[in-house]
């Protein structure tokens, strides 16, 4: 059932094996977290998947079609969406226009001249903004948005061409704890509803443990563990390598239980807002 098949992805910089024979599968509707300590190779993996970096070896197949060797633009057209660690949006356009641009590009209308850009695909853009809870801010300039709202806008943009696969590089970096839970819950709902596969990297273990369906642990460019949240949590090698010691990990676990209670409160708060 997996529609994304990564096999033997390898990349070295000079003498350093940044990523060594990484393989993974992703199913539709699955939220897969890619975690690991700094320098584990997460970003390198991401950049290879999205065509920004050419791997030394390996293949990435999306529904049987090879992604390696394609430009980011081509990969996007093949149905891969992406959000950035530091948001990248058009500051001089409104929220609405930001989404409209993705839709215009999807409908191959960039080089057309009529009608004007701001009149194109409005219903579709509105639906997307509604999905991420941004419709009330549709006519504001993207440059005045709060950071959490920019992340939502990015999600709406990434969903504009109905992608099969969504790559999210540290989706909650730089956000307040409350916003983190809200955004990931939103993502999880969308994934479920639209049967999209999501691969995301994340530093915040609370977010990972609360929302990921499956976790992939990367260490020194190699896959250390691959399994459900509980399996990965219980894995002594992960505890040792990733968190440095069992005692620290225990504390982490306690903190996490407290956090999930907070999380549910936040969800309600969001629904009220």
């Amino acid at each position, binding site marked *: 059932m997996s529609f994304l098949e990564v096999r033997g992805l390898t990349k070295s910089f000079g003498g350093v094996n940044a990523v060594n024979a990484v393989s993974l599968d992703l199913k539709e509707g699955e939220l897969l977290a890619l975690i690991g300590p700094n320098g584990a190779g997460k970003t390198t993996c991401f950049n290879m998947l999205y065509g920004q970096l050419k791997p030394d070896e390996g293949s990435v197949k999306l529904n049987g079609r090879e992604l390696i060797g394609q430009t*980011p*633009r081509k990969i*996007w*057209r093949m149905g891969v969406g*992406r959000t*950035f660690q530091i948001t*990248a*949006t*058009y*500051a*001089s*356009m*409104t929220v609405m*226009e930001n989404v409209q*641009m*993705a839709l*215009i*590009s*999807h409908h191959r*209308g*960039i*080089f*057309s*001249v*009529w009608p*004007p*850009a*701001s009149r*194109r695909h409005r219903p579709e853009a509105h639906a997307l903004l509604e999905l991420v809870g941004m419709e009330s801010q549709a006519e*504001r*300039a993207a*440059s*005045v948005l709060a950071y959490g709202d920019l992340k939502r806008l990015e999600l709406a*943009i990434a969903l*504009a*061409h109905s992608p099969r696969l969504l790559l999210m590089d540290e989706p909650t970096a730089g956000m307040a704890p409350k916003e983190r839970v809200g955004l990931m819950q939103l993502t999880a709902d969308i994934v479920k509803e639209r049967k999209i596969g999501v691969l995301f990297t994340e530093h915040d273990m609370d977010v990972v443990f609360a929302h990921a369906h499956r976790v992939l642990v990367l260490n020194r460019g190699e896959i250390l563990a691959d399994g459900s949240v509980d399996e990965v949590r219980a894995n002594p090698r992960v505890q040792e390598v990733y968190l440095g010691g069992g005692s620290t990990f225990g504390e982490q676990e306690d903190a996490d239980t407290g956090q999930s209670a907070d999380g549910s409160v936040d969800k309600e708060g969001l629904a009220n807002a």
Partner: protein
Amino acid sequence: MDFFVVQILTGLSNAAALFLVASGLSIIFGVTRVVNFSHGSFYMLGAFIGYSLMTVLPGFIGFWASILLAGVAVGVIGLIVEMGVLRPIYKSPELFQLVATFGVILVIQDLTLLIWGPDDLIGKRSPGFEGVVKIGDQLLPSYDLVLIFLSFLVLGGLWFLFNKTRVGILVRAATQDREMVGALGVNQSWLFSGVFFLGSALAGIGGAAQLPKGGADLLMDFNILAPVFVVVVIGGMGSIPGAFVAALIISELNVFGVQLLPQSTLVLMFVVMAVVLIFRPWGLFGRPETLGSHGSQGPPEAPLRAFSGRLWLALAAAAIALTAVPLFGGTFLQVLLADVIIACLFATSLHFILGLGGLVSFGHAATFGGGAYAAALLVQYAEAPMEMAMLFAPLAAGLLALVIGWFCVRLSGVYFAMLTLAFAQVVWSVAFQWGDVTGGDDGILGIWPSAWASGTTAYYYLVLTLGLGGIATLLFMAYTPFGYALRGGRDSALRSEAIGINVRLVQWSAFIFAGFMSGLAGALFVFAKGSIFPTELEIARSFDALIIVFLGGVQSLFGPLAGGVVFTLLQDWLSRFEYWRLFLGLMIIGIVILLPNGLVGVGQWVRNRLGAAPGKPEEEAA
């Protein structure tokens, strides 16, 4: 064999001045990220100051002391420019700094004219090196060997400075990461002033040292600018060995080019540059630019709004008023307004790529003059009627933009600016050097409109129709998906690529379209004046458009129109004075420092002040 040795040595000695100026420019850019367009003026000042000193200080010691003192004097002038003009605007967008240094060029030009007069000065021979050296049966001026020695001396000195001294290592560190060096407790403004002094002094020494070979004249500033940019682009911004190697390549090429293809010397160096850029867009010794490494982009632009009913009314009223002008206005007013409209079209076409696309072109005159020359050549050689010439001129300009743009859109920021300037100089040099076809300096005369459009009023209406039509088309394009994609590429190229937009293709298309419209302005211009000269392709013409855009306000669609009106009227008035460049230069510097949002910005400020009561909730929230 001897012939080749002498040729190579001549090339080496020619490279000396080029290397000194280019290395100074490179050092300044490396640390301050400012491309100092007035660097050629520092070179010229070095020559004039050195000349005056040499008439006072006699003998061998006097000669060399003069060169050194000229360097120090120019260094101090550079320091004044840095502290007075650039320091207030380091935080402004890159374009502001570039335009400000252009203001400095104008000021220095007129001050030099004021002090030393208009005549070319012939440099004194260097005492002790008046003669020639015999190499086999070939002769070489012995001063050439001195210059070769000097350039190696400076290269060695700079190497020592940057690798073996604490100050030099700090400068190198600042080149890589300014903020980090600041965080380590180094006083940045001291560092900036220091490199400005050093860089300017090198240009001054370069100017003074070449006196025995080239003398001093008022065209030196612009004449060295294009080769220096070529050298810096080939060598890589910020690299001193790169500047050295590139200066050598260009100079040797020139020496041998004169022997083989005497008509193409100017074009040849640009061909080399183009070849280098295809394979290494950041130069031989340079590093690829990291995004955001330049001056800040300034506050984000407000989203485009649809024209309001009041704006439509105002535009309609303006169009009716312009149509009615011949009923009450005389010939003078109609000719002046035609000039204004042509300037507005020219500037609006630049604003399309510069304002919307973030592509700061410093060579927009290439397509303006290109269109004008295309029309003139068609009339001259094909005896084409005006209508046909006006149809083909924009197409020719668009074709030119297609070629130039193909190279230029690979680059961004200052590299783009320098490359467009260099290409405009290629076009200029073709028009200037290819006298058999273009008439060279004498231009092409007798290009008059068809009979039906030959009256002042008739031609005014033609300019009004085509000019306003062109401007309206450019404004309309801003609202199309294409215009949005262009702005998107400027806002975030990363985002554009991530939603499948080919940023380079969009930019290239916009460059061609802007070139087409600029060519139309050129065609309207040539039939209005009846003649065309290479001056319409000069750097100064490119800067007219830049200043108009800048004066009006980069972030506003109507900025170029407001700027075009004010600038043309102002120039018409100022050019009656002898030292109008001085005034214009000071005015540009003043605007950059005091009115960063241009005329439209001032208008908005006034409007906010007058009707500020409710205010926009959104802006208050932010």
